[in-house]
């Protein structure tokens, strides 16, 4: 008996390396009869037309659904540097779970420093518009951008497919998840599947929204009231419950410290109204992802709120003729008091919720087996 137990203990580490894929949906997802996982949130108990705001707006689960196996395979791929040309960069190198799925840097660093900062991936499964300039619409299409960008993971389609098929663990796992060998199409589906499981909708703010008046302290409530009020107007673009409307807006962000003034969506269009327009980012887990704005222009939330509390266009890059959004300090700056600025910052901290943090794989399928 004792010998048998001992055997089990000794064998355990080796067995742990036999990677299998989860056959249950991630927490907060239910399995449907078609074998895919559907998100469940309390916002589904409400009634409002799509894209409405307010505390109890309905939020439908994302329409794209994936199987538990696809989600779990995506988790391995997300953390695996095998996807990059040099084998040194994974998605998680920049989108680090421990840093709110961002990197703590002003701008992402791949092969070289990029021009834009790394956005969080919390709730990204809901996004209908991706990247700072909104240039992609699906996670599947998005994943190809960092993969194939020479400044980021610098891979090629062929390179990714060859590497995954040659890796010891992946062929079997792709068979389980897709019934097919690894290829670029199912690779990006798996990455999208995993990212769609990154849900943050149970912060203290959410408990307040669902009816727990004690979930926020008085200062946070004051901050929320200023945030949704019509002097600061934050919630007109950062619309709850996702705290974004996924729209492009020109807020008049300053050039970055290198003096570069990113045209944003203006680079993709002739429309002068698009110059300097960026997609409104979510504010979920915003305390985790400093520095802020598309090129890390602000180190702190105080810096951001002070920016909004100034006159329209005060920081706009010289020489850019920006059509600043009408909700940005309409009447000579909102002139919020120092106390109100502090209240808003306190409220933003109440949007923290990382309970559904996925587990970082202890072993990767690309690593050689013992």
């Amino acid at each position, binding site marked *: 008996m004792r010998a048998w137990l001992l055997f089990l203990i000794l064998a355990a580490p080796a067995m742990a390396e036999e990677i299998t894929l989860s056959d249950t949906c991630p927490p907060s997802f239910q399995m449907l009869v078609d074998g895919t996982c559907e998100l469940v949130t*309390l916002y589904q108990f409400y009634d409002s037309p799509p894209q409405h705001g307010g505390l109890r707006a309905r939020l439908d689960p994302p329409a794209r659904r994936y199987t538990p196996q696809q989600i779990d395979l995506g988790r391995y791929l997300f953390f695996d540097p095998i996807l990059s040309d040099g084998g040194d960069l994974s998605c998680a190198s920049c989108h680090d779970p421990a840093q709110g799925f961002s990197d703590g840097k002003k701008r992402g660093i791949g092969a070289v420093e990029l021009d834009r900062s790394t956005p969080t991936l919390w709730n990204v499964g809901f996004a209908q518009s991706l990247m700072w300039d909104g240039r992609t619409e699906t996670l599947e299409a998005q994943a190809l951008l960092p993969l194939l960008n020479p400044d980021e993971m610098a891979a090629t389609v062929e390179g990714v497919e060859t590497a995954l098929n040659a890796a010891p663990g992946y062929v079997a796992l792709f068979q389980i998840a897709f019934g097919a060998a690894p290829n670029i199409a199912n690779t990006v589906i798996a990455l999208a599947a995993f990212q769609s499981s990154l849900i943050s909708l149970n912060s203290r703010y959410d408990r307040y929204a669902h009816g727990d008046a004690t979930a926020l302290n008085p200062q946070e409530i004051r901050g929320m009231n200023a945030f949704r009020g019509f002097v600061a107007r934050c919630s007109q673009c950062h619309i709850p419950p996702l705290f974004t409307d996924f729209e492009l807006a020109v807020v008049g962000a300053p050039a970055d410290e290198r003096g570069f003034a990113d045209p944003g969506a203006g680079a993709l269009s002739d429309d002068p109204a698009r110059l300097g327009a960026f997609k409104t980012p979510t504010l979920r887990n915003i305390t985790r992802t400093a520095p802020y704005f598309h090129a890390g222009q602000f180190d702190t939330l105080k810096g951001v709120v002070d920016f909004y509390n100034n006159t329209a266009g005060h920081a706009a890059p010289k020489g850019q003729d920006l059509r600043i959004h009408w909700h940005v300090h309409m009447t000579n700056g909102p002139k919020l008091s120092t106390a109100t600025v502090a209240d808003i910052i306190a409220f933003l901290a109440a949007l923290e919720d990382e309970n559904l943090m996925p587990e970082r794989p202890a072993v990767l399928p690309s690593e050689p087996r013992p």
Partner: protein
Amino acid sequence: MKTLSTLHGAVLASLLSSTALAAELTVPSGGSIQDVVNQAAPGDTILVEPGIYHQSVYVDKPRITLRGLRDGDNWALLDGEMKLNDGIIASGHSIVIDGFRVTGYKGNGIMTQGANNFEISNNYVEGAFYGIFPQFGRNGLVIGNTVTGAEDAGIYVGMSDNVDVIDNVAFGNVMGIEFENTRNALMAGNHVYDNAAGITLTLVPGLPVKDAYSQVIRDNRIIGNNHVNFAPASSIAAGVPSGTGILVVGPDNITIENNEIADNDNVGVFVADLITFGMDSDPKLDPYSDGVRVMGNTWRGNGENMNGMLAEMLAATGKTGIEVLAMGKGRDSCVLPGDGIDTLGTRRWQDCLGDNSVAGFATARLEGGAEEPEYTLEQKGRLTYLAVCTGCHAYDSVLHGPSMQSIQAIYDGDPSGMVGYITDPVRKREGFPEMPPQTYLGEETLDAIASYILEDLGK
């Protein structure tokens, strides 16, 4: 029904917790309205005595009636003294805001955000950015209010559905009454005068709601809207030409019938597309105003004193006294030939037919109101378990809290014991975080969760 006063907060709180009946709570003159709102339960009516309240009020629970009591000229007056942001903001469904005088706020006077089945009635709002602004609402009524001095619209219905705006008075605003990105709405019996523009029906780009349609504008008096446009230069409202009775920019299926439209210096009704106003930057919007029907209105003295941008634009035509001006490529619009009105730019328009009439259209609201989706107890238990509890509890392993298997063992056959714990969790285990109380989910749902965990989960 009892009338309670804030002075007896403790008594009041205990009464509230012990009764499920709707209560009537009174705020004594000058007392804190917010304190009473915080103590109120869904279904309660809050009566605010006449007096001066230098306060902002926020209502985040459903089915609250907030009523200002009035004694002649002595109102329940909310006065922000140009120091406070907003007068009232309510997010709870079935909110009623009635009978307040609201002045001196830097932001909005009265606003709802995401409240369905709202009613905003008999208030007098002056000098806010937007006077009365229901936003993101499904099913609502704005009735019997007076709004003046708004730097944008006096009454602004934004991104809402099934709303009636009836019998209000709007004067001295940049715009009297506006429907923005709103679907299925009625504006009737309003008196709209001395604004820069009387009524605006718009489809604004860059907002999450991408369309605006089915609006009936009937039996309003739209008189002498020639006020100077005093909107801040950075706003969209700054582009609205003064001297306009009704301005339509972008929405579809609009009927303008049986109104009295008089003495608007530039034009009676101006129908344009988003391109004309340089507002066509959103590719997800259809920029044209289609299906605008103008029929059976009474006209007098419109376009007789043209000035500003419209005068410049139309100078070459030599025309004045225009009742209906159309610009851009809308389709399927019409005027009633029998009305014999002067139009410009309506070459593509057709003749309205008698059966286009909406004279009898009584309400755009939903019969029975907007309803919450219905869930069975089984669904409530299971779905809430998934939405909330699984964030911390896994079935067969420790996550942030103990495994559900171990919890099933503790509370086997004792659902009310479990409900007791999750309502008021106590520290039990070393090294675990505290579990937050789940009372807010409501008794019924908590019971359903407990029976789901004990009877169904993992079986």
